[in-house]
């Protein structure tokens, strides 16, 4: 290698040390993080350029988990697509089920009974707790605090048991149907939900003690990965990540669905938009969800758990199918042709744990959507990575990714 020598005077040195732009003294290093790496929570891949320990540029590569869900939707009836929504944000499948069913119902201009709405509210909020518990736990783990993860995960296990009682599956719930839910809540389930709510708050307090005022945790997160209000809106962030930046937007408050306007709850809003704020958002949202669940169970409506008058959409009860001619035909039609949804276009967004999950559905009538487009909040939330990561330390990336709390299943669809 050819070497060049250069005489440096004291003046040069002075000029260099004072006011001179800190220029790169050597080569940058290309570092590939992922798609299989402990910090990426799935199959996100980051192509980075490092200057020492500082990231110069970051290029996120998505698509390793692409399954073509949107295309698949065009080839099956509306109800058959419900299991696919489980696999979007697989940490809160119930909330996805609900959002999807509501989108289709909006297209069909179908009102579900109060009891069904209440069940769905419970589903959404339990899913939110489940997702945020994992979010906080994994975030703690990313920062090096493994124990937090174990504490929150223990609570999630209890939650899964509740899901199992309700839906028959711990993970892939597939609970909603267009026009209702798959089955009514089991006996005594509401009591067990309340019991869980009682148990989850002390665990949150424990996590609070371990992290919130922990000097190391604060050093790692305060001021790291700050997003300005403007950027957050420009990049289409939603959910806790957006609210952490100081934008008060929560679809449950601003565009109430499922009767959320009846519940008294606060929407936490951050100030700095940094990793620390995003952690606080999630912790507070769990508390608010618990309060919503308690209010919901307090006045749990009686009645039917599905829209009884939607004869062409919700399959009738099995007992009736076997005894009544009309119901037999109805059942046959819905099973073979799918729920009959009128032609039209609809876009519906629900406030999911990760942000606004939207479904855009084009129907030409019949039981199969003509086109279904999913707006995955994780996908939009990750779009800011390219702008946000450069300038941070390599180690900060774990904390930033953890604080954004994304799920690749929803990102790649």
């Amino acid at each position: 290698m050819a070497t060049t020598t250069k005489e440096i005077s004291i003046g040069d040195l002075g000029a260099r040390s004072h006011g001179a732009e800190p220029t790169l003294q050597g080569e940058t290093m290309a570092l590939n993080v992922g798609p299989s790496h402990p910090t990426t929570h799935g199959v996100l891949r980051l192509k980075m350029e490092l200057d020492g320990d500082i990231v110069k540029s970051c290029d996120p590569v998505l698509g390793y988990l692409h399954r073509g869900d949107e295309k698949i939707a065009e080839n099956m009836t509306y109800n058959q697509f419900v299991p696919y929504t489980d696999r979007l944000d697989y940490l809160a499948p119930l909330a996805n089920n609900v959002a999807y069913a509501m989108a289709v119902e909006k297209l069909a201009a179908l009102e579900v009974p109060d009891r069904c709405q209440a069940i769905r509210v419970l589903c959404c909020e339990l899913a939110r707790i489940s997702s945020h518990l994992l979010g906080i736990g994994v975030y703690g783990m990313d920062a090096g605090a493994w124990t937090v993860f174990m504490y929150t995960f223990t609570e999630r296990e209890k939650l899964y048991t509740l899901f199992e009682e309700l839906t028959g599956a711990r993970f892939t719930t597939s609970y909603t149907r267009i026009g209702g839910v798959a089955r009514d809540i089991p006996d005594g389930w509401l009591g067990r939900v309340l019991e869980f709510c009682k148990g989850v708050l002390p665990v949150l307090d424990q996590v609070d003690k371990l992290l919130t005022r922990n000097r190391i945790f604060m050093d790692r997160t305060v001021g790291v990965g700050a997003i300005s209000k403007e950027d957050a809106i420009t990049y289409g962030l939603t959910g806790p990540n957006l609210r952490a930046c100081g934008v008060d937007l929560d679809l449950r408050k601003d565009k109430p669905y499922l009767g959320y306007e009846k519940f008294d709850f606060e929407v936490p809003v951050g100030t700095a938009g940094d990793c620390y704020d995003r952690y606080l958002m999630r912790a507070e949202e769990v508390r608010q969800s618990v309060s919503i669940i308690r209010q919901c169970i307090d006045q749990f409506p009686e009645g039917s758990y599905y829209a009884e008058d939607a004869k062409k959409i919700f399959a009738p009860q099995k007992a009736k199918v076997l005894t009544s001619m009309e119901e037999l035909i109805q059942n046959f039609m819905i099973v073979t042709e799918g729920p009959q949804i009128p032609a039209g276009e609809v876009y519906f967004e629900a406030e999911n744990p990760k942000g606004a999950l939207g479904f855009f559905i084009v129907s030409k009538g019949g039981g199969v959507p003509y086109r279904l487009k999913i707006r995955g909040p994780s996908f939009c939330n990750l779009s800011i990575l390219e702008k946000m990561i450069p300038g941070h330390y390599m180690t900060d990336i774990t904390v930033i990714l953890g604080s954004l709390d994304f799920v690749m299943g929803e990102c790649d669809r």
Partner: protein
Amino acid sequence: MEFLDASLPYIMPIVYAVLMISVFMGLCSYSVLAERKVSSWIQGRVGPNRTRVPLVGHIPILGNVMTGLGLFQPVADGLKFLFKEEIVPGHVNKGYYYLAPIIALAPALTTMVVLPFGRYVDADGITQPLVLANVDLGMLIILGISSLGVYGIVLAGWSSNSKYPFLGGVRASAQMISYELAMGLALLPVFMWAASPGYYDSEGLFVEGSRYGMSLFGVVQSQQAAWTILWQPLSALLFLVALFAETNRLPFDMAESETDLVGGFHTEYGCFKFGLFFVAEYAHIIMGSGIFVLLFLGGWNFLPWVADPWGDGIFGSVLSVAWFMAKVFFMIFFFIWMRWTLPRFRYDQVMSLGWKILLPLAVGNLVLNTIIIALYDTLTR
């Protein structure tokens, strides 16, 4: 017989050394078990409780208790490392790659030589330390040799020829060098207090200079009344923090930091070579705990201001060793406890903590203690 008598002084140290290494390695593997068990208790899990050795594990009640406590787990862990397929990535620098785990473990085992772990009373009625080599400069040797341990990590990071280990190696070397300074400075006041400016020999004459120098035995003997930690809390704190950094334990495990560097310096290591790194980490923890106990927690001395209740005979020696080990176990527990409670620092925060906080504090502490000692000596002389 004559030959045996002549060679006994040479053979016995070797026997002792082998004995000590076996005990020490046993301790290492059981501290791995302790880590797994304590962490699982902290996190509300059960931990390893399935490994059962034939015959022993089937003793009616005892066998079940031992299995439940995972007492056979270290055997399984060790054998697993031995029997795993040895995979060496094609891109590594072979020589250094094989050398690194050895260099990582060797210093911890070497420092063991000068670490006293108990006391006995010899035929003349003088208390002597139980140690392989009672060296006056014991602490210097420990500091010197244990700082060689970083070479293992740097070599591992470098020879792996891969980016994550490289970053881990670089971070580890910078971190260890920075914290060694604070560590050494935090120790000095302890030795300054332990080493009096002079002593009266057996004939009642004043002899200039210290009786013990930097010997660890001397420090322990000087703590018969009050433990150092009680009147040198700052030194103890500084030393403890530096110790955490030196042993690469969370919150300072920059070299490993598994969430961003995958496995840090040992990412490319598998099977027994990884096992050696693993054992080295625990060996360093045990050594560090031992040194901390000797310097600050009174070594084998019973309790502050309480005379040792054990006698002079062999039984007394055994009790002193047991008491020392109990303190060491507490320190190991403390290490584990911290690891499963705290999050991890960022690399630059580790460096600024070391240089901007620990080092000035250590220097200030040293200066302050020097002044106090000088005043004390002047006034009491």
